[in-house]
């Protein structure tokens, strides 16, 4: 494998390209019109345009992507996450073009990509699923049929897209009155987001935690589960903070839930990287939720506590290599890792997207900090895609330390020109519920509703005075004569002195 085409954009395309470089493989990028200067294009060895900015015209265009692969001479395709990552037609088309698809087989994607089929597979593997409809709702279901189906499951319930993911095409319905509208809304969103309006119903567990198990499986029958991740901090069913290990999971539960995950994956004949998601109820029972047949957004935190590079292993598995590390390394976490998804959204205005040009960007750094970013100063955050600009992950010896480190890193993060969710995370990480790990999947929506839009910025009075002073002084400096020329002259003088001294030193030696 000499050249890998990355059928994605943004931070994950950069992440995969970095893995390629470290493996001596040449990364090839594809780009839509608005992504011509995106980081993933500049970071790749080659780049090919695949169409207009709307995803259906570019990043979802199987033909254009395969054409780019052929033109570049790539011998493999990495789909990243989102876009075509869980599209079995794409995986099959890549295979049919004689290229390696870095991911599971089209058959496994098809099986686990349908949420209803995946639920059936889990049941066959002896793993409990959240109670719900066995298959998708008939498009022609009558209102009385719908009512009685919902009644049998019980309220509150979730309407979920069969082909869904990332919280799209999902609605919570708390009573009969909202049922029909919820189903209609979910169908509409699912249709436009995934090209498949099919939805199903599932009971809404009370205050569950979201626990998921990363897996790697090679093509020689070895399957390795990883220590769990917890992703209970969600806004409208979208993960915003992830951590590993979970405070709610001890060694016995870890053994049980990873065994369950392995059983489901084995039953599906799964290979490469995947993640099985569970809900954990207040009594410690867990239920299969769904399987993501791809690299997960939050994979960095697993890499941090296990020391295993998941993208590298994806490539190695696709090359036919064997999982030859000690499985205990994947199961016994070292320390604690936390990830915040930094979005171009305005947290003080109901998390509305905040596209636009990034004026300045200064990412945090130093011990235990990893910033996987697709953004750069001068770049526009396009309106066409998910507005995540970076994943800020931290590692430390224990959970209290990693929370403190994340707060430090958030304080260092400078992004101007657009709004980001950094202020929201600074607020969240100071909440006692978060610090003590007392949360569940609806915690965040509840606390946000209770705040009723109150700003996340709670400045001290001095900071506001300093802001006013800074605005006045900046205005004065920008309007008046700049001192920069005088400063420049001083610098040149200093540089000359240093050079003179260095030469003198060199001569003395």
């Amino acid at each position, binding site marked *: 494998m000499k050249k890998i085409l990355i059928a994605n954009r943004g931070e994950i395309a950069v992440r995969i390209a970095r893995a390629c470089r470290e493996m001596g493989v040449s990364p090839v990028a594809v780009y839509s019109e608005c992504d011509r200067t995106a980081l993933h294009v500049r970071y790749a060895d080659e780049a090919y345009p695949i169409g207009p900015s709307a*995803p259906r015209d570019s990043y979802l265009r199987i033909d254009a992507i395969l054409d780019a692969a052929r033109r570049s001479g790539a011998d493999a395709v990495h789909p990243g996450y989102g876009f075509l990552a869980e599209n079995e037609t794409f995986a099959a088309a890549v295979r049919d073009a004689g290229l390696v698809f870095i991911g599971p087989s089209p058959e496994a994607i098809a099986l686990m990509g349908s949420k209803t089929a995946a639920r059936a597979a889990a049941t066959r593997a002896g793993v409990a699923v959240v109670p719900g409809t066995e298959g998708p709702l008939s498009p022609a279901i009558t209102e009385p049929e719908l009512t009685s189906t919902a009644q049998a499951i019980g309220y509150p319930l979730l309407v979920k897209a069969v082909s869904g993911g990332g919280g*799209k095409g999902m609605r919570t319905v708390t009573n009969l009155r909202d049922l029909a509208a919820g189903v209609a809304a979910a169908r*509409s*969103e699912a249709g*436009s*987001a995934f090209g498949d309006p099919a939805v199903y119903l599932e009971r809404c567990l009370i205050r569950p935690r979201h626990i998921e198990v990363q897996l790697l499986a090679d093509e020689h029958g070895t399957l390795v589960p990883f220590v769990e991740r917890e992703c209970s901090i969600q806004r409208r069913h979208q993960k915003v903070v992830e951590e590993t290990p979970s405070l709610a999971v001890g060694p016995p539960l870890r053994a049980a839930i990873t065994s369950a995950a392995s059983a489901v994956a084995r039953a599906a004949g799964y290979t490469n990287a995947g993640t099985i998601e569970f809900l954990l109820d207040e009594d410690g029972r867990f239920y299969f939720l769904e399987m993501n047949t791809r690299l997960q957004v939050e994979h960095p935190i697993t890499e941090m506590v296990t020391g295993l590079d998941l993208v590298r292993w994806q490539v190695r598995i696709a090359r036919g290599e064997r999982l030859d590390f000690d499985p205990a390394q994947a199961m016994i976490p070292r320390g604690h890792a936390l990830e915040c998804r930094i979005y171009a959204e*305005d947290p003080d*205005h*109901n998390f*509305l*997207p*905040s*596209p636009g040009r990034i*004026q*300045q960007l200064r990412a945090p750094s130093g011990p235990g900090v990893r910033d996987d970013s697709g953004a750069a100063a001068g770049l526009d955050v*396009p*309106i*066409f*895609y*998910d*507005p995540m600009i970076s994943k800020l992950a931290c590692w430390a010896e224990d959970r209290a330390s990693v929370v403190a480190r994340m707060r430090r890193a*958030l*304080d*260092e*993060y*400078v992004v*101007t*020109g657009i709004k980001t969710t*950094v*202020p929201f995370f*600074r607020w969240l990480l100071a909440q006692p519920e978060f610090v003590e790990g007392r949360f569940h999947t609806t915690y965040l929506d509840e606390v946000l509703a209770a705040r*009723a*839009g109150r700003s996340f*910025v709670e*400045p001290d009075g*001095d*900071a*506001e*005075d*300093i*802001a*006013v*002073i*800074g*605005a*006045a*002084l*900046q*205005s*004065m*400096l*920008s309007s008046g004569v700049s*001192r*920069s020329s005088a400063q420049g002259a001083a610098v040149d003088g200093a540089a000359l002195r240093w050079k003179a001294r260095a030469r003198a030193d060199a001569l003395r030696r």
Partner: protein
Amino acid sequence: MQYEIEVDGRLRQVVVHRVGDGFAVEVDGRRWQVDLARVDSHTLSLITGVVPPNGDTGDATPASDSSRRPGVGPLVSPRPGGPSREVIVSSGTDGRLVVRVGATAFSVALNGRRRTDEMVAGTDGPQRIVAPMPGKIVRVLVGVGDAVHARQALIVVEAMKMENELRAARDGTVAGIHVKEGVSVEAGAPLIDIL
């Protein structure tokens, strides 16, 4: 140099004097000593101290400070050193500035430019809901004449692959709807008026 600066809905009066190598700045009568260094065209480094009316330099242990000066009015050039703050000034929407102090960002307007953002409008008067970003109108949830309450969802705009509900800032009545479902709108386009 005198400035009128609005931040968080309040007008602040700022007077800047140059004193020695630094500045003495009054904010609504509160006096600051400021040592200013410019990092780049948008970034300032401020080392500040509040100057009490007697002109104390604000040292932590003033009783034993041999450098302490008696009160000699506001225009003393005090001994430098104290709280350090990085300030980044960037342009915001509607001609406002975003001023970042440490990790906290403030939206400010210089010299009387009032805030025009209906999203955080005051407690009375008409509201205009405008598109916060370019996008497509997915659903209009209210009709002209409807009574709406604060935080009620009014309209759904799809942008960046997400459906975003825009809500009323406070109670009122829908006076006008400027868009239809399915149309695309630019950022700032008026959507709904509420009286």
